[in-house]
């Protein structure tokens, strides 16, 4: 039978034109009669014509977006092994709690005394975050990971200014395996970035770091576990060394999932660390919801924490809105209101439903799962660094050498197998990196299906079946896209085809 259909649809895979192609200027969701007896007060200064926006009937609009949503891949459909992203299941209980009208319908400007429950929730979440990290203070308002980094580095900058050292302490040390946001944040705060080399086994080189320390060093920014999925075993010595040199220790908490309930950053000598609620504490992300990046602060940085902040006075909760009292030295305000309330509700639901023992199990199982994947895949693939990993397993492309298949081709073939690909080409310290983070969500059966499929693909690549990879994915709604052309000659806006061209078709 033919592969072509009259409609262009393929079974349940329905084609979706652009809104501009599908809509028309005459249709409307609600058809109201033209008002009569009104007169424009703009005289002849009114718009010459209505804006050219396509309009739809309600069922048309519904079908457009439902069809698009069916082309999506989501954690609710299968394993989402993106490294450094912690794509875990978002429990439905969290959603139910976030939709309680007392939280969902609350206006951010509601008077304090009418919002005591919401403020109490933020306060309780603060307590949990401080307890889990062993830190004395937390700023709740940052809206995502990089925003939390900015909060931490602004607090560090404020502390340096308070000591009168802002002219001299200008250098920030960042490992070469860091998330790109780390150096970007440092530069945003007016620092210069100095790269820290790694060791043969994928950690920060402690001696090289010590050699770079001096009275011009403002801070080090280190991710732990790092972006190679490895625990920085010298972290305590790094913290001591930077403190001795008069600098501060910023820890990127993106990978906190691996150590939650097991190790407390406060005990490791950290001065500031952001926590991605949307990673470790299961609030939706990656198109599913906004992030939230509360930032914990040490005693040295706590006085500079941003406002607003929730405090408890007797039995009453207050939102500190001004730089006063304990917050007199605050570096100021990062956002209009108190932060991502919906995410706070979800994160606290997750914490309360897991409990302290459950959260410890989260950390343990995420590491166990990653090591299971690591050992199984190492049969065919080369590990980035030898030895066990934490929450994510890193592979290089060495095993693909001379096969004619690259990391990108391998990842695209995974789409045909029904998986979202892993993180590719990051961290940069490993050639053709493939970074796999299964999270604790996946069962052994799910991990086995994933590993069996990747091992099958690996054998096919080594056996010279390049056809399978070259233009993959073959089964996705769209096959391989020309990413180069898209980047070199991007089409950034839809242009209405000319009438003549339409008629000629």
């Amino acid at each position, binding site marked *: 039978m033919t592969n072509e259909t009259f409609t262009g649809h393929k079974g349940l895979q329905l084609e979706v034109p652009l809104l501009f192609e599908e809509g028309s200027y005459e249709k409307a969701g609600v058809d109201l009669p033209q008002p009569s007896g009104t007169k424009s007060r703009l005289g002849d200064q009114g718009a010459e014509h209505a804006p050219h926006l396509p309009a739809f009937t309600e069922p048309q609009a519904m079908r457009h977006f439902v069809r698009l949503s069916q082309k999506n891949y989501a954690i609710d459909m299968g394993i989402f092994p993106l490294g450094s992203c912690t794509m875990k299941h978002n429990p439905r209980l969290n959603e139910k709690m976030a939709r309680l009208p007392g939280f969902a319908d609350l206006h951010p400007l509601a008077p304090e005394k009418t919002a005591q429950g919401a403020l109490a929730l933020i306060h309780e979440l603060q307590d949990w975050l401080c307890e889990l990290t062993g830190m004395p203070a937390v700023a709740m308002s940052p809206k995502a990971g990089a925003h939390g980094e900015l909060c931490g580095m602004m607090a560090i900058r404020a502390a340096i200014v308070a000591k009168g050292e802002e002219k001299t302490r200008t250098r920030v040390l960042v490992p070469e395996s860091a998330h790109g946001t780390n150096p970007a944040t440092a530069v945003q705060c007016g620092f210069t970035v100095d790269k820290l080399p790694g060791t043969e086994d994928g950690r920060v080189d402690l001696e090289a770091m010590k050699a770079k320390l001096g009275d011009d060093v403002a801070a080090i920014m280190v991710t732990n576990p790092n972006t190679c999925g490895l625990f920085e075993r010298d972290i305590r010595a790094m913290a001591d060394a930077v403190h001795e040199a008069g600098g501060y220790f910023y820890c990127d908490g993106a990978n906190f999932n691996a150590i939650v309930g097991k190790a407390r950053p406060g005990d490791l000598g950290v001065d500031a660390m952001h926590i991605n609620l949307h990673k470790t504490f299961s609030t939706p992300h990656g198109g599913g919801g906004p992030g939230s990046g509360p930032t914990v602060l040490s005693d040295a940085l706590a006085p500079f924490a941003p406002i607003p902040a929730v405090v408890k006075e007797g039995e009453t909760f207050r939102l500190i809105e001004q730089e006063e009292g304990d917050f007199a030295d605050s570096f100021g305000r990062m956002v209009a209101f108190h932060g991502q309330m919906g995410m706070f509700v979800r994160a606290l639901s997750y914490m309360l439903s897991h409990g302290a023992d459950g959260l410890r199990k989260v950390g343990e199982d995420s590491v166990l799962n990653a090591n299971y994947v690591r050992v199984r895949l190492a049969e065919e693939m080369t590990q980035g660094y030898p030895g066990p990993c934490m929450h994510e397993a890193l592979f290089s492309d060495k095993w693909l050498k001379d096969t004619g298949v690259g990391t990108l081709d391998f990842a695209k073939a995974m789409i045909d197998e029904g998986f979202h690909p892993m993180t590719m080409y990051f961290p940069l310290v490993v050639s053709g990196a493939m970074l796999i983070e299964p999270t604790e969500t996946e069962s052994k059966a799910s991990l086995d299906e994933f590993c069996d499929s990747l091992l099958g693909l690996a054998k096919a690549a080594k056996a010279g079946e390049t056809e399978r990879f070259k233009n993959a994915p073959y089964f996705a709604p769209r096959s391989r896209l020309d*990413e180069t052309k898209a*980047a070199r000659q991007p089409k950034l806006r839809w242009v209405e085809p000319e009438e003549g061209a339409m008629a000629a078709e």
Partner: protein
Amino acid sequence: MTTKFTKDHEWVRLDGDIATVGITKHAAEQLGDVVFVELPDVGKSFGQGDDMAVVESVKAASDVYAPVAGEIVETNGAIVDAPEGVNDGPEGDGWFVKMKLSDASQLDELMDEAAYKEHAADA
């Protein structure tokens, strides 16, 4: 005119006291299709190893370091307008900048072609 190479995969070729700098064929292959190049302004000075330019491919964005210290005297606008030039001739028409050296002896610290080939094969 000999060409010298850095461990970060830049090449530098000296002609009189002007050095032409670019990224190596190996680097261009590793990056894949280059889609964006950012070059420094003419007249700007760099120390050896300073971030000098940015090259971005579909895979990654990388800094290009000054292999030797000096002042920029000319930049290759052609690869800014058409970044594919970097892939087409990384060690020829796809050069990045020309710089006036402040210390020619720094060239002696860099690798020759044979040493670089070995270095690239290891990477």
